[in-house]
């Protein structure tokens, strides 16, 4: 018990150190900019403004970390019962640099399996995860086999995609439709509908479900080119950098999703 607390404390202190270094880095960059420009006063004020924002985010991160710790330790009762069945398909968008940390990705997948999620889609723009997909599947299967009978039943349906599965897939579908409908110049071509597009994408092998929830692990809240056709009503949540991911934050994001009520435009 005492060992676990020590590990948590060490991780926490390391996290504070990295945040302080980040802040120091930013200040140094800003300082360099001031000297390279003419308008000293304005840049100084701009730097002060960003310093205030950085301190604010630091404080918010601190509070969130504490909350995550409390959630994962089971102190917060409202997070105990989670209706995971509401999340039928989960998408995880990773910044390509962060996706290189395969061990962290595996840990995330483990957490998702433990929570009861069955269908997960991993996305990173450059296709880093596609290269590590085999390794990930192998590790997951081996872990399932080593566990007891209950754990064996928990398997994860993993889909791994990259930037080419988005815009390029639509271009390929356009070529497919060109050949199918427009080849015969005599026949009157009916207006192309969205279901025609969806069918074309399915025919060329890009039919996949639309995620209910998308978690973004990276520095920015940006979906980095996730296939547009599947993003219509997906709830998008920014989780922060992968290296500082927390189990409690994951539970909080999923619980928040289960409480959302969508109108779908009506």
């Amino acid at each position, binding site marked *: 018990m005492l060992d676990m607390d020590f590990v948590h404390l060490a991780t926490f202190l390391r996290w504070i150190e990295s945040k302080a270094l980040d802040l120091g880095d930013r200040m140094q960059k800003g300082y360099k900019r001031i000297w390279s*420009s003419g*308008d000293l006063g*304005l*840049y100084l*004020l*701009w730097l002060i*403004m*960003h310093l205030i*924002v*950085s301190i604010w985010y630091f404080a918010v991160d601190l509070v969130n970390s504490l909350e995550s710790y409390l959630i994962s330790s089971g102190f917060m009762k409202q997070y105990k019962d989670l209706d995971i069945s509401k999340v039928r398909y989960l998408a995880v968008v990773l910044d390509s640099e962060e996706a290189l940390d395969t061990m962290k990705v595996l840990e995330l997948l483990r957490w998702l399996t433990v929570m009861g999620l069955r269908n997960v889609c991993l996305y990173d*723009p*450059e296709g880093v995860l596609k290269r590590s997909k085999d390794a990930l599947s192998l590790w997951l299967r081996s872990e399932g086999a080593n566990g007891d009978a209950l754990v064996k039943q928990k398997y994860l349906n993993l889909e791994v995609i990259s*930037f080419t599965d*988005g*815009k*390029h897939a*639509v*271009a*390929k*579908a*356009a*070529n497919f*439709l*060109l*050949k199918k*409908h*427009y*080849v015969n*110049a005599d026949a009157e071509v009916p*207006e*192309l*509908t*969205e279901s*025609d*597009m969806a069918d074309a994408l399915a025919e060329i092998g890009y039919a996949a479900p639309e995620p209910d929830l998308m978690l973004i692990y990276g*520095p*920015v*809240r*940006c*979906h*980095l*080119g996730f296939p*547009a*056709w599947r*993003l*219509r*009503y*997906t*709830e*998008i*949540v*920014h989780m922060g950098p992968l290296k500082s991911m927390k189990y409690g934050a994951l539970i909080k994001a999923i619980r928040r999703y289960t409480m*959302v009520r*969508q109108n*779908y*435009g*009506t």
Partner: protein
Amino acid sequence: MEKQSSNLATQLIEGLCSFLRRCICAILSAGSLPRHVAFIMDGNRRYAKKEGLLEGDGHRVGFTALMNMLKYCYEMNVKYVTVYAFSIENFKRRPEEVQSTMQLIQEKIESLLEKESIVNQYGVRVHFIGNLKLLSKPVRLAAERAMNATAHNSTATLAICIAYTSTDEITNSVEEACKVKMDELGGNEIDSKELHIDVADVEKHMYMAVAPDPDIIIRSSGETRLSNFLLWQSASSLLYSPRALWPEIGFYHLVRAILDFQRNVTSLETKLKQS
């Protein structure tokens, strides 16, 4: 006498706010500013319910908020602004609601053409983005009139998405790309192995080809989804979801979004180069 003094007080406060805004704009311009900001105007009906107004009045207050946000954006030298006014999915609402919203939209489009409107003040070119064939004739004609009247403006651009969904936009641009390619090929055999249409061809025919990809997409009322808005163009956009309902949105939220953008602009730029 009292009315005069309260008018003077209001003018003084407005003058002070304007001065403060200009100061903050000047400070923010020390860093990079976004070129294109998009807004999803969500929360008008909830606001009306919250304040005990009639449903249509929520949209009217929302329009005032829109005019204010446009003013703040153009003061900040944001060259392109896009707003999500009406989705194709919104046609599924109650017919009376759709009718009254359309009437309001027509009324507001016509007000944009007036001399004192923001469009003339800042030299804004207006584009109506979407499947305009789905609109009723008077609204469509008003939109076309507005587009023609502002065609010569070049200082800034306002794209109003009406009868728009991203999936419809993608479908339409694929259709246009196919038609153009058919004309080019002129009835020759199509080689299935060759990629006749590429991503650039599809992007050329998008309704939103009039503007670069958005740098920031702001959705009010705290909802975290895009609801079929600019799904194709948002590959490197910062998504910001303040909890304020649309009629409650103000300069503060724009400043927060721009500060976030400035904190992340280097990493967003590298992603832009890759895509």
